[in-house]
């Protein structure tokens, strides 16, 4: 049974995502030691073609935005719904390129018979619980940052449902009273899981919270064992723990 990592990377005018990808790739090479497939566009590919990865070149959709440090910036996140088709592996870890592994903890989730697993809880490593606001929607949020899935009928149904939700996102946004106007995979997957489970709460998730550093906080140092980050007027450290980092400027650190 083949296993591998699937990443999506599209540069924008504001953010050189390929720099994040390179850091993410190095961490995967060190800790997970699995083959990597990168889905990207032609323009971004020119900056990452030296990586020892498989590449899948697509023409990405554009037009979506996200709020980042006081402004709306372009966000090319619409292709992830095709992950089931893009993945050449029987078992895949689909992860955002701003999720950095500092351990091999994700590997253990391959050894289960869950069709797919993702986080439904998050831990703000600054202790402020500032990631998730109140009343963002009427359904429980899930985090599409890391999705471990097998090529099974149930997983295919999940991704098919997400495609349908993305296509008719304004309808589902109204239905579930999702506060955010932009398209977010987190909500699309949350809706899909809710619908696939017969509109009943689902319990099959990664059992521990995803560690996350909010975008307001800066990374001061990043090496292959952990990160040093600034919060308030203090400095925190996180080592040997996988973390989702929302600060995008740190790629220059």
């Amino acid at each position, binding site marked *: 049974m083949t296993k591998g990592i699937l990443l999506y990377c599209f540069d924008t005018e504001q953010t050189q995502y390929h720099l994040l990808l390179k850091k993410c790739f190095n961490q995967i090479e060190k800790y997970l030691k699995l083959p990597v497939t990168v889905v990207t566009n032609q323009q971004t590919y020119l900056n990452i073609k030296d990586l020892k990865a498989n590449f899948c070149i697509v023409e990405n959709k554009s037009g979506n935005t996200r709020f980042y440090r006081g402004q709306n910036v372009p966000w090319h996140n619409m292709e992830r719904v095709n992950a089931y088709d893009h993945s050449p592996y029987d078992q895949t870890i689909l992860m955002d390129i701003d999720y950095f592994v500092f351990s091999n903890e994700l590997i253990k989730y391959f050894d289960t018979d869950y069709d797919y697993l993702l986080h439904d809880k998050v831990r703000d490593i600054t202790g402020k619980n500032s990631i998730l606001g109140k009343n963002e929607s009427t359904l429980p949020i899930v985090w599409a940052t890391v999705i471990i899935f097998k090529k099974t009928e149930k997983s295919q149904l999940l991704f098919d449902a997400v495609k349908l939700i993305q296509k008719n996102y304004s309808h589902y946004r109204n239905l579930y009273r999702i506060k955010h106007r932009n398209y977010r995979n987190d909500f699309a997957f949350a809706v899909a899981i809710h619908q696939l489970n017969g509109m009943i709460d689902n319990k099959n998730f990664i059992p521990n*919270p995803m560690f996350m550093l909010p975008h307001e906080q800066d990374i001061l140092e990043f090496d292959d064992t952990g990160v040093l980050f600034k919060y308030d007027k203090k400095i925190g450290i996180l080592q040997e723990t996988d973390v989702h980092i929302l600060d995008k400027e740190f790629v220059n650190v």
Partner: protein
Amino acid sequence: MDIGKLKEYSNLAQDIALTKKNALEKCKSRQIFAYNNRLFRADAQTITLTNTLKSHATTFVILDVNENPCQIEDPETFLKILLQKNQETINGYQQVLDKFKQK
């Protein structure tokens, strides 16, 4: 009252509390392991339950972290893994706390 000293103490206490919480979450996360296609946490509750059931039956069914049933065919090995994972992770947590004792 020395406000400066109070502030310094409060800042240090916040640092310690945050590091402890992150370390504890890391410890709990590392306690998760896959067994017989299911996910288990090597915590006190699972260890106690396994030990109790083991003394009454040679094989039994327990719920995994997502409340899915799992047949435990070899309770001895399962308990060994639980104890090893539990102690590994809690020792790691203790080491983090020991660093702060000096402060």
